[in-house]
């Protein structure tokens, strides 16, 4: 398939791995931020192709993994209401809340629907005017424009029976938290190509400068990732700390201005709690007051309880790159995709699920 096969060619990938071996002189620890990249690394077995000096850590860029348990519980609360059609991206349905998940609400008779695109909820709201339609608007900067567009359109069309449970997060503040942690081991970052397609690359410049760390904006195919790692290693070996763009076929420095405009129109920066990590200042997107009538958390209020469960799950440390999934005592024992303890074992983009599913042959 065009634009895919050429980025999975063993020959091209090996060329970059060989080039990396030639320039590398010492061990380096690099974190890929995005869960999509983690999935690709595990699926295509990229780690085993890299020089042994390169260690990859897997970052917090999985929207399902970082949505706080309180929000999942709130979603479950709303979805269980008798007159509600609750719409969500598929992966969210399996994420455990403090007592159950959205699939079990569906099994108990709740009208919980998986949508492929947030735009579907407009149609559903029009089709069922007597019902309250609620969309679980989660994700990073990648889902933010489409989610914002739907909210914008809901206001344009004056849809009274549609609301949004918003738990949007943004990447750069999480990178800052990782870098500022005394436990930080990350020496170079692969930034998420799709996030930068929307937002551009400028907001990464201060991070690279302040923390003296190379940041390479990277795509998702095996060749993209290997090339991104190569560029990062080259910077590290040469003592540079710059923002470079491997994913230039998609990412422009200024990003996608139309998408940024609609995000700006609907959302404002808010503090946000990340599951397993805690609250990160200025790391979320919340509805602006001009859109507050679409806020499902106000339409279906629920007392917020702090419900980080007492569990052996170390997903917070995994998300921060402090530990690998296999260092968790519960990994593959009491925590599996069939009965996950933490969200990183649920989503296909979660590091634990990726490790479990794409077990290396020598495990």
């Amino acid at each position, binding site marked *: 398939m065009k634009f*895919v096969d050429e980025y999975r060619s063993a020959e091209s990938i090996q060329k970059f791995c060989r080039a990396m071996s030639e320039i590398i002189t010492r061990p380096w620890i690099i974190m890929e931020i995005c869960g999509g990249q983690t999935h690709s690394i595990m699926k*295509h077995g990229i780690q085993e192709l890299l020089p042994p000096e390169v260690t990859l850590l897997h970052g917090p860029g999985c929207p399902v993994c970082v949505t706080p348990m309180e929000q999942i519980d709130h979603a479950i609360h709303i979805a269980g209401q008798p007159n509600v059609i609750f719409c969500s*991206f598929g992966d969210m349905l399996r994420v455990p809340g403090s007592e159950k998940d959205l699939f079990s609400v569906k099994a108990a008779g709740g009208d919980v629907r998986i949508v492929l695109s947030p735009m579907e909820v407009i149609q559903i709201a029009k089709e069922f005017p007597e019902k309250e339609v609620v969309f679980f608007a989660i994700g990073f900067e990648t889902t933010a424009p489409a989610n914002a567009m739907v909210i914008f359109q809901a206001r344009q069309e004056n849809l009274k029976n549609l609301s949004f449970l918003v738990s949007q997060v943004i990447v750069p503040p999480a990178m800052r938290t990782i870098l500022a942690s005394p436990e930080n081991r990350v020496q170079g970052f692969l930034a998420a190509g799709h996030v930068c397609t929307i937002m551009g690359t400028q907001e990464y410049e201060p991070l690279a400068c302040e923390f003296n760390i190379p940041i390479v904006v990277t795509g998702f195919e095996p060749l993209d990732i290997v090339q991104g790692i190569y560029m990062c290693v080259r910077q590290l070996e040469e003592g540079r700390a710059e923002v470079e763009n491997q994913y230039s076929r998609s990412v422009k420095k200024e990003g996608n201005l139309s998408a940024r405009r609609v995000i700006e129109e609907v959302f404002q920066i808010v503090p946000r709690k990340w599951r397993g990590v805690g609250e990160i200042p200025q790391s979320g997107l919340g509805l602006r007051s001009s859109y507050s009538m679409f806020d499902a958390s106000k339409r279906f209020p629920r007392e917020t309880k702090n419900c980080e469960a007492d569990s052996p799950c170390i997903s917070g440390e995994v998300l921060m790159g402090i530990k690998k999934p296999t260092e968790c005592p519960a990994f593959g024992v009491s925590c599996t*995709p069939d009965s996950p303890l933490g969200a990183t074992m649920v989503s296909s983009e979660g590091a634990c699920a990726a490790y479990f599913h*794409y077990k290396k042959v020598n495990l």
Partner: protein
Amino acid sequence: MSGESNGGFSCPLPFHENSVVTLAHGGGGNLTRQLIEKIFKPAFNNPDLETEHDSAIIQVTAGRLAFTTDSYVVQPLIFPGGDIGSLAVNGTVNDLAMSGARPLYLSVGFILEEGLPMETLWTVVQSMKRSAISAEVKIITGDTKVVDKGKGDGIFINTSGVGVIEPGVKIHPRQVQPGDAVLLSGDIARHGMAIMSARKDSGFQNQIESDCASVSGEVRNLLDVEVHCLRDLTRGGLATALIEIARSAEVSIDIEESEIPVCEDVKGACEILGFDPLYVANEGRFIALVHPKDEDRALHIMKKTGNDARIIGRVKESPEKRVTLKTRAGSIRMLSLLSGEQLPRIC
């Protein structure tokens, strides 16, 4: 679609009275009889079809019988490349074929939802008729129940089937030996992606056609060579079938990603949704594990269907019972069972 699949004939029931299925159609009275006489009997007409008695009676020959059952639920009921009717016939026929049997007879149980358009039932039944003729099986007994509106999904179908296994045919995972070639009968993941793309909310413009078909004829030709095991690639797809065989046969299997054909439209749809085609359902594809001396002959036979059959890997002796995939990128990874269905990714 429906006009074409009806072969130019329309539903013979008087529509002004019976445009939809009602609870009375399952009540055992006049309307049930009308349904049988006007819709089922003409479609499944054969000397062994028993509509006057509680059971069909079939002559048993010496030897071994294969017996299987499966239930079919799918939305939409009619999709590019097939419908729930062709699925229900071919699915059970293929299950029989996978044990090396020649499929002979099917039973059909319908659970219809009140309000189902009679035209839809007619289309599905006509499709079953054509599939049965093409797979050379007879539908000889059946049952219909109607459930209240909202308690079904249009149509549920159960089919059971029996077939004969010729003397000397031994198809079973336990027959698998190290060195056996793994042959795949064609490109994968069509059915699952056809269903996904046929749903009205998918937004896909390209129409992916299901691979729904009987493989019974192809399998019968294959029995001339030393086939050790056959498995159709339905729910869970190619990866699940390979893992199940490796576990039952207590061997390991190595396969090559670059040898597994996936058509461009299917590949594109999988990429968009974040699905792995190795785990997507098929309804007309199977794998054959064949003694290496016969692998070229087997491939030659399988290629005759024009579905791009390939040798995709090999069985090796190993107590670990695992399936490993050599990726296009040149790495090797293990295939494992999924926890549930694949869900579309978020971004």
